[in-house]
């Protein structure tokens, strides 16, 4: 693993996409299955998941809590909590298989080629370290920067994520920053080595709506610079605003895949339709909010057929017999349903 040369740090103009051969996906996951032994038996929080993210694309994963969204992200990062492990499938980053790499090789990729930001910017920063130091840490690990270059690039990164008074902020501690600023620091930290792929796990859930809008705009600007983004959220509003394509996940499986506009105009899977109906919309006036009856199934006792079957309004006998396969409806639109 050669160290990248320490350059200036303008990632928005960097154009990562140009460096890759045409047609190569930034991230290509196929047939990914994660097994997690528990006291009562083995569960599969991620089961036969395939997805791809093209250069400069923002792709969303949406689903209820516990449907396997975050576990998918961790599997891509190679950070599944023990004793879980990947038992099948492949994860390709810019054409290179990374699922079977050694811990040392994965460490070299993490932070430099894939990065991740979390929901909780309060606790994702070390409380006793100055934020400038924390942001520069990834840089010092993955490149041979001098202290001075690292400082300059950290400062540039703070400017890029629009942190006001960046020089003063470098020397502050996390508790001196607001939630929105902390999330910006997290993004600066994730982007400092210009990764090809940024995984954003519920990046705006803990923030209020005005800050949410700013962070989403920031993600869009990163995309314009060529970074691919995998955005995980249960908030359909967030997904609709920034994503090009969406995967709907349920009980560890992908139920529907479509371009965002297509999914929102004509959702095919009953679960997708339920999710859309259950989200707030100002246009629909004062009707009571619809909900999907029931809860996420226990992964230890999944039904034999379609995982969503027990909660589905259009369930038929064939749904109980076997799990439907993902079926292509039209180009780029696939659904796991018999109807």
């Amino acid at each position, binding site marked *: 693993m050669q160290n990248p040369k320490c350059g200036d740090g303008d990632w928005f103009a960097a154009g990562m996409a140009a460096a890759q051969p045409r047609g190569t996906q930034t991230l290509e996951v196929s047939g990914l299955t994660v097994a997690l032994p528990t006291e009562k038996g083995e569960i599969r929080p991620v089961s036969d998941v395939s997805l791809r993210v093209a250069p400069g694309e923002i792709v969303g994963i949406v689903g209820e809590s516990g449907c396997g969204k975050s576990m998918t992200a961790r599997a891509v*990062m190679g*950070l599944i909590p023990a004793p879980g492990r990947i038992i099948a499938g492949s994860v390709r980053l810019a054409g290179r298989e990374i699922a079977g790499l050694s811990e040392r090789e994965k*460490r*070299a*990729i*993490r*932070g*430099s080629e894939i*990065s*991740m930001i*979390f929901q*909780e910017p309060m*606790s*994702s*920063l*070390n*409380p*006793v*370290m100055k934020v400038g130091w924390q942001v520069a*840490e*990834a840089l010092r*690990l*993955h490149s041979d920067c001098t202290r001075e270059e690292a400082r300059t690039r950290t400062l540039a990164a703070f400017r890029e994520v629009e942190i006001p008074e960046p020089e003063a902020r470098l020397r502050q*501690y996390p*508790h001196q920053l607001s939630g929105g600023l902390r999330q910006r620091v*997290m993004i600066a*930290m*994730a982007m400092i080595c210009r990764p090809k792929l940024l995984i954003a796990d519920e990046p705006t859930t803990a923030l209020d709506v005005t800050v949410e809008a700013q962070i989403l705009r920031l993600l869009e600007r990163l995309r314009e610079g060529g970074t691919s983004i995998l955005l995980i959220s249960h908030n359909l509003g967030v997904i609709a605003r920034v994503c090009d394509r969406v995967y709907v996940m349920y009980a560890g499986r992908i139920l529907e895949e479509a371009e965002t506009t297509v999914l929102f105009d004509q959702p095919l899977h009953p679960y997708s339709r339920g999710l859309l109906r259950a989200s707030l919309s100002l246009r629909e006036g004062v009707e009571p909010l619809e909900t999907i009856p029931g809860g996420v199934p226990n992964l230890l006792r999944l039904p034999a057929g379609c995982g969503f079957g027990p909660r589905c309004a259009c369930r038929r006998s064939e749904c109980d017999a076997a799990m439907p396969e993902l079926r292509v409806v039209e180009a780029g639109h696939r659904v796991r349903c018999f109807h």
Partner: protein
Amino acid sequence: MTERFSDLMRRMARENKTAVASGAVILLMLLAAAFGPMMTPYGENDMDLMNRLAPPSAAHLLGTDEGGRDVLTRLLYGARISLLIGVAPALLSLAVGAALGMIAGYRGGFADTLIMRMADVTLAFPSMLLAMVLMYALGGGILNVFLTLTLVNWASVARVVRSRTLQLRDSEFVEAARISGVSGGRIVRRHILPNCLPTLLALFTLNIPATILTESGLSFLGLGVQPPFASWGLMINAGQQYLMTAPWLCFAPGLAIMMIVLAFNFLGNGLLDVLDPRRKKR
């Protein structure tokens, strides 16, 4: 832990006068140990056989011992040994205990089991008994006292640090560091250790009196520091046979031990109160 360290110290100074007074006593003792011996007209081992067992007077403020040596002078020299023996093994056991505790907490699995069972075995014996056995096996001398006190005290530090590490290991900033590609060793050194420092500081101040007491006990039994070095425990040991005729021989070092132990305990508790949110006053 969102408050700055300096803010915490200021809060302790405001709320806990005992801790502040204890800090002053400790500072005074340190100054006395450092500069006191230069100010007395007598040497540590200056005998004056014409003046044995003299009661406190203007010439000898705390009297003289069975060899006619000035007790105050010996007390000041003894303070050097006793404080050194309080601080150095406390630091050593802190370093050893923190390192092993962090390894056990972060690595888990076999390393955790091995280190924690070793700690359990150490803690299963009364510490004085263990120290006596070790000193008996190793022989006297200051270095062996250091070694013994470290071996006796590392286990409780390791336990506390391990539980703190377990907490920190699952925190999101450690996860964030792993996502940036930071290695395990570096996470422990740069992310977990700095977050353990307040706990370690409090443990340190509580460990000092424990080691001073153990050393005094060992020296009293003749297993610790060997004459002609003066240590407070040794002075009590020498003075006990004159307890009826010259009680100042035992009282002076005894009072000194009591004061320094109480002062460190009060300060340590004060530190724990402000550093550990679960110990907030009800």
